[in-house]
């Protein structure tokens, strides 16, 4: 039971500022879409949340039910994973020379997840039966769709409360994109996961999102009130078509 609050976040690489005053709220149990075309800062924000990039201003916090606040702003990537945040990175970033099963097992490196390794492995194989068939195969030798399944499965192995999914549709055939997005939507419902999904495929993303943000040049250009607002607001269409 966790809610992600990002307030007035600035971040970048060296002297280049990418994110400018970004404020986002991902409520517990919801799937929130972070929409925007390439190069607008979606992945930078994802990396900030996972601690791979340190923000220059602003804050990133996890709020728990009981009022506990976990400040992730200056936390290490390890501490952030331990806090229950997992990411499916852009480009999947699998370990190509390890087997499917070894990739999944590495996902359970977090101490809290080691005890439930077997259960989580079963869950990943049930979610994606394809991975069960290929569990002894090297990850790098699989098709793009299978690799994306593995990337999602691997992130789930750490038993996360908050799942970050960065561009799950990249490099996939349209039919697979639709299946993958549906799968992520189901995940949110069946596991009660809180999900922040960065996506440039607006039409697919808004199918499963409870609400959404549009990010343009590192700034939040639009924040929807709810799912209906995201699907129907003309602003979304303008940004999507305009981009």
């Amino acid at each position, binding site marked *: 039971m966790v809610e992600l609050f990002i307030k007035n976040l600035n971040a970048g690489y060296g002297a280049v500022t990418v994110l400018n005053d970004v404020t986002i709220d991902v409520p517990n149990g919801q799937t929130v879409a972070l929409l925007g075309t390439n190069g607008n800062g979606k992945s930078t924000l994802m990396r900030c949340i996972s601690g791979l990039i340190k923000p220059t201003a602003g804050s990133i916090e996890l709020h728990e039910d009981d009022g506990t606040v976990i400040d992730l702003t200056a936390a290490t990537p390890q501490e952030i*994973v331990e806090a229950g945040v997992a990411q499916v*990175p852009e480009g999947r*970033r699998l370990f190509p020379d390890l087997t499917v099963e070894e990739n999944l097992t*590495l996902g359970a490196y977090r101490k809290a997840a080691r005890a439930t390794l077997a259960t989580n492995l079963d869950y990943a194989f049930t979610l994606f039966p394809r991975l069960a068939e290929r569990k002894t195969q090297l990850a790098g030798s699989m098709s793009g769709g299978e690799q994306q399944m593995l990337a999602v499965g*691997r*992130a789930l192995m*750490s038993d996360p409360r908050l799942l970050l999914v960065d561009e799950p549709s990249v490099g996939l055939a349209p039919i697979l994109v639709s299946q993958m997005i549906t799968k992520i939507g189901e995940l949110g419902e069946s596991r009660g996961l809180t999900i922040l999904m960065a996506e440039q495929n607006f039409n697919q993303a808004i199918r499963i999102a409870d609400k959404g943000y549009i990010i343009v040049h590192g700034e939040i250009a639009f924040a929807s009130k709810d799912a209906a607002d995201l699907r129907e607001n003309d602003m979304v269409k303008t940004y999507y078509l305009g981009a």
Partner: protein
Amino acid sequence: MAIFIDLLLNALVIGVLLGGFYAALSIGLSITFGLLDVVNIAHPTMLVLGAFIAFLLNSTWGIDPVLAGIISTPFFFVLGWLIYQVYYNVFEKSGAESLRGLAFFFGLLFIIEVGLIIQFGVDHRLVEAPYIGQSWNIVIGEEIDVAIPFRLLVAFVVAAIATLAIHAYLTKTFFGRAVRAVAQDMMALRLMGVDPIRVKRIAFAMGVATAGIGGALMIIVLPIEPSLGRLYLGNVFAIVVLGGLGSISGTLLAAVIIGIAESIVATFFGPSWAPAVSFGILLAVLAFRPEGLFGKTAGAH
């Protein structure tokens, strides 16, 4: 005919044992170079340092060389830890490891070698143990008997145990799997909650730690002197590449293949051809399997 069978059997047995010995020399490099992409060309010289420590413990207190190797292994772990710390902070962190890192290990090689010369002189050193110079004769038939030199048998058994233990550690534990993944994608590993620098530091220290026990086996098998490491530099790299980068079991099997090939060639064709045959095997294998005998190459990295 009996003589031929006698020679063949002995060549095979010696080859397998010699292979175990070569594996002990190569296994540390298989971790540091094969898995971590750190070109530790000082590794054979660290083995010689391990051999001199075994010599010192053996000649001063009469400690069995294998036990001496086990005793010095933690020392090498700490040494490896410190070396990686310097290597990481000075070279790897800034992405300058490819050429300057190589120069760093080249320098380390000579510092260790010169240090050994200053401390021990250039004399050849041996250790004493009841099993050195003895062999186990197995009579198989008329004019056919297999002699197993104990010094090679001890080296083989210890090397095989160490290799299998390292292999099990790397495939069956969470940390071991992280070691095998670290050269493939450090960022992804961070997202799994792993600190890749810590993984590399510990794994590098493990690789260097093998110089303790490996060096002890070295001085059990042959006399050592400070510059001996450079002589074996080519061989250990050849074995690691032949076995396949990143494959610990591949290193063991490649070492046994080289051992058998050298022993057969030395017996039937003349010992001076033996090294040519090892490198010939390496070239032939790389021509058809660039990833080595047991290497995995699903990804492009």
